């Protein structure tokens, strides 16, 4: 299947999509997840290291995709590894992507029904959300990219505004001592941040749609760097305000930070609704792109029309989103996705890259 030439995106758009995919569910739980594993206020270092690793993985994937211009991972898999093994790996990627889509939707319902729409049945939230997203996806990648270009700057401005409001309750002592127990806790905190960095792998697919595939490395580095900076600010503000001990017991620590201050006199006294609104937009974009990636993979693997794949996956994702019985199972599901990502996104592309180089070398 040859990609439609008109459905192309610029380098900046590719970077924006990477950023939007990264900024998802993770940001609300990141401070707790990292603090649980590290146990010291140095978690921001863990996030920084995690971000560096994500960027490195992103570069590997971008280089890999660059050497197969115009093809997505699902397509060059086949030519590299043959029909069966390649197909199997593609299938793993596809399953991973729609599991991720299901996870995003479910996390969205959990938070909205707790803080925003108490009493609204979850199916009403999920279905409306999925339909709106489907409408966008039927237009192809270009409309998705253009919408994301509107969402990302809005998110950054509002998010930074809300986070910096938290300075009123920020205490530097909560972030100290730095490296008080050596470097080991920092390293322990790196792995749990994986879930927050899920999303770089989209470059495996995006490169095929880029006008200048040669610049895919640039796109993934910029896209990830934006997110790493936002994550760093989040972790520093949340731990600085609520402290490691205060964060450990909270389900959604980032929301709790915003719920912990009021600024009388401004037009808004409370900012959590504002944060939730942009967060829903972010989940929307993460969900859309992972769903789109899953459908595209399916259509390329089985040679079916993309639109029918988009429709066919709807009930599957809906059912996946309903599987976790409670929040604990949902978080375990998220951890599972994060761990899968480490192998799927960390190891396989590297192997594929070596294989590509080797094949090229033997040919030349």
């Amino acid at each position, binding site marked *: 299947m040859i990609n439609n030439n008109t459905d192309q995106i610029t380098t900046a758009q590719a970077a924006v999509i990477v950023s939007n995919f990264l900024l998802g569910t993770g940001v609300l739980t990141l401070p707790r997840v990292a603090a649980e594993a590290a146990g010291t206020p140095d978690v921001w270092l863990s996030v920084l290291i995690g971000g560096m690793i994500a960027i490195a993985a992103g570069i590997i994937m971008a280089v890999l995709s660059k050497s197969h211009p115009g093809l997505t991972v699902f397509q060059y898999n086949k030519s590299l590894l043959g029909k069966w093994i390649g197909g199997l790996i593609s299938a793993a990627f596809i399953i991973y992507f729609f599991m991720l889509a299901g996870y995003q939707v479910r996390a969205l319902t959990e938070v909205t029904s*707790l*803080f925003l*729409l*108490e*009493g*609204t049945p979850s199916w*009403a939230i999920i279905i409306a959300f999925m339909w709106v997203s489907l409408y966008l996806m039927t237009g192809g990648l270009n409309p998705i990219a253009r919408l994301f270009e509107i969402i990302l700057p809005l998110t950054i401005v509002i998010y930074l505004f809300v986070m910096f409001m938290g300075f009123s*309750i920020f205490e530097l*002592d909560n972030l*100290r*001592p730095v490296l*008080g*127990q050596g470097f080991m806790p920092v390293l322990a905190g790196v792995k749990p941040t994986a879930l927050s960095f899920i999303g770089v792998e989209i470059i495996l697919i995006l490169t095929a749609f880029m006008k200048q595939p040669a610049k895919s490395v640039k796109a993934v580095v910029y896209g990830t760097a934006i997110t790493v900076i936002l994550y760093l600010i989040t972790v520093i503000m949340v731990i600085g*305000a*609520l*402290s490691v*001990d*205060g964060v*450990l*017991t*909270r389900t959604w620590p980032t929301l*709790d930070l915003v*719920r*912990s*201050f*009021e600024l009388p006199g401004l037009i808004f006294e*409370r900012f959590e609704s504002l944060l939730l609104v942009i967060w829903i937009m972010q989940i929307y974009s993460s969900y859309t792109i992972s769903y789109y990636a899953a459908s595209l993979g399916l259509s390329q693997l089985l040679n079916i029309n993309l639109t029918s794949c988009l429709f066919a996956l709807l009930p599957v994702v809906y059912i996946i989103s309903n599987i976790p019985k409670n929040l604990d199972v949902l978080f375990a599901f998220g951890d599972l996705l994060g761990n899968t990502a480490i192998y799927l996104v960390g190891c396989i592309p590297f192997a594929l890259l070596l294989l590509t180089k080797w094949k090229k070398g033997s040919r030349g």
Partner: protein
Amino acid sequence: MKITFNRTKYLLIGLCTCSLLIQTGCWSKDEIEELSIYVGVALDQAKETKLEAKLGKLAVNANDRKLLSVTLQIVNKQSEEKGGNSAGDPATKAYLNVSETGDSIIDMIRQLSTRMERPAIGHHLKVIVINEQLARHKSMYQLLDFFLRDNDIRPNCVVMMSSGLAKHTLEAKGNSIVPAFRLMGMLENRYRTLKIMPRMTLYKLEKHMHAESSYMLQNVVAAEGEVKLSGAAVIKGKTQKFRGLLNEEELLGVILLSGEAEGGIIKCVNEKTNEMIAYELKAMNSEIYTSVDGDNVSFDVKMKSEGRIIEDWSENSGPIDDAYRAGVEQSVEREIMRLAKQGLDKIQKEYKADVVGFGTRLSIEQPKLWQKVKKNWDQAFSRIPITYSVELTITETGTEKSQ
């Protein structure tokens, strides 16, 4: 062809119009007029009000265990409306207090739905006042669990302690006052007096509860509809239960030691003239220095303050020169040392509770050592030698040049 196109068009317009009808409004809306917004909660030992006892006799099923009483302060919407129109209605109070006795806080709050037509919501809860006797037997984990867990109540809600009945602090004489708002307003006065401690909010409590560290809660007393912030209650880290009270002077000493003073008056007798003199503190900080020798820790607190002479009762008029100033500085410094000693003796020797934050300092400067002592920090703290000193500068003497 043209007709069918138009038909689809009309069909679409029709569909759009129909969909508009279901687009307005919200799925699970609650009208604000139909809600009871509670702004204050008082937790007391179980004691049924007369009304509750009467209702209890008539009710068909009332066999809850009687563990504690909860009083909710609900903002009276109607009187507020009237207040806006005609400058306060003298006949109705701006608030409504309702009490319930039972064993689960959320259950008692929900019970109120069987007594009032408007359901209570906690989005605007500002203050929780806990009775001292109740906190002696029940830990903060138990008393505050619901408030920390609930998704409506915000973590910036303030927690206070009352040495009398907590529900009395939520009562006011006049009809224009909402007592919970009055308490919040009083906490804002920290820049005027040294006898109010920084507000202790739920999110800060959560940290102390999880770290098992000791802390203070502002004490408030009430009589005849008037309230007064007086001293502080010390909560022990390990048990999270009430340990004892600090009186106003002891609290002042602790606040000075922790360097959290924002502004206020320190009065003392000028040693030279033997008359009362008042020093207005304008800036203050304190540094805790840790020194470790083997496993022996000691602390040194250096307090620094700037301020002015605001009242002087000495009669023999003369110019305020450097010598006089130095004399005043010395007298005030001595007074601060006395207050600090009083406060420190109480928390260190009697209550054995580190509410100043020596532990935090140690954890920052000696993280390895802290890991060893943190389990039994309050005990260790009680044996650690602490020295302190104060450096005071009088920068001005107000609009008077001489005594």
